[in-house]
């Protein structure tokens, strides 16, 4: 079973930025690349405790943790370089009209 979680209006997240979704546990981050595409991943860097939605950085389709410069593939969640060795969980994103939803397991 899965459920859709309303994340934000499409215009609520500027390209090149990320946000942490309120009330998600474990926390989920929503990202919008410079090209305008949306991705959702686990919010916490798999290397050390750090919120990638509040203070992560996007480079193309990659997500960079600013603390120790771990990099993740936004599509797969896989770590692209050390110090991260574990993948981020990734979630499907659905856009309906001007609303962005993240699909989570119930």
């Amino acid at each position, binding site marked *: 079973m899965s459920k859709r979680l309303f994340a934000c209006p499409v215009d609520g997240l500027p390209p090149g930025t990320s946000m942490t979704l309120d009330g998600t546990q474990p926390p989920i981050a929503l990202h919008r690349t410079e090209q305008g595409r949306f991705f959702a991943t686990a919010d916490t860097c798999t290397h050390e405790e750090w919120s990638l939605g509040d203070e992560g*950085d996007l480079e193309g389709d990659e997500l960079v943790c600013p*603390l*120790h*410069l771990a990099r993740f593939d936004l599509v797969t969640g896989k*770590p*692209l370089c*050390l*110090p991260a060795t574990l993948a981020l969980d990734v979630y499907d994103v659905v856009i309906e009209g001007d609303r962005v939803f993240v699909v989570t397991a119930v």
Partner: protein
Amino acid sequence: MSILVVGASVAGLRTVQALRMKGYSGPITLLGEEPHPPYDKPPLSKEMLLPDGDGEAILLATEEQLTELDVDLRLGVRAAALDVAARTVTTVDGEAVGFERLVIATGATPRRLPGTEHLAGVHTIRTAEDAVALRTALPGASDVVVVGAGFIGAEFAAAVRLHGATATLVEAQTVPLAHVLGAEVGRRLADIHAAQGNTLLTGIGVAHIEGDERVQAVVLTDGRRLPADLVVVGIGAVPATDWLESSGLPIADGVECEADLRVIGTDGIYAAGDVARWPHAHYGFDVRIEHWTNANEHADLVASAITGSPPPRTQLPYVWSDQYGHRIQIVGRPNMGRSAHLVGTVADGDLLAAFTDEGGALVGAVVVDDVRAFMKCRKAIAARAPWTGVGLVATR
């Protein structure tokens, strides 16, 4: 193919992890001089000194992860010599360990003050034992002297305040870190010590340390005598290449490597981390970098070279320092340029310094407590953009 990694700290262990992540499934032997399983180094002068922490080393891999890595981890084994022709590393116990590929990851050794090696109360900070000894000594210390006001010294001085004591920092340069950050920015970083109740003495050296079995005082070159029951020496480190002297490898402030970290003139011998000197792709000249992220990046680079995988993208030098509750992040090479923008202080958590070269391109930045500004600077430096291209307001 058998791979031998000498040195089981960040660069060594990460190399093993990177080899496995890139699909190498053959035998790997990892030699570690210390008796502990691989642990992280930055916490030695940070978390491990906290009065309310557990003082335990932070392991780089759990026992389970080490098992999964399927690595022959030999702890308490110090390499004594390398025979390139025979393709063996001899340990201090006389055992010869053969290899087809070798990764030299022996790191760097902290400089000590001459004649203090056996004096109780005088410490460097490089191993878990160092950090544990300091955390144990700090609650009872009354006269703490820190020799060297670089990052290690500054972080330790901050820890001293958390234990309720104060420290006197003694720095040979007129301004701490001036050789890295310039005098103007170095001074701003150094101001935090006095603001937090420590004392910083600059432009002065240590003449000698007094004490027979235990340290009693630090005597300065101008004759001043600082009573001391605990001394930390943070005056840099030298690459740990002593064991390679007879090997014939090219060594000049580190092991000299090609762009892919293969040691120059060798076949299948690599170096990684603090010990390696190599041509950095962003700069086009040889550097040796003692930063934690560099050790991680080198692990990826070496593993790519050994496995024939595409090399990772080159990253800018990056280091962080945690002092008095503030995080200082430094990216690029500030000393390649001049200060183009400087606002704020460490104490207020709003310092931002940007450095540009003669052509106006950003070459480095120092940012305190502002991760977003830091990341913008990092991108702009990588793109060799001008300061106005960072996208930050020029004043605030």
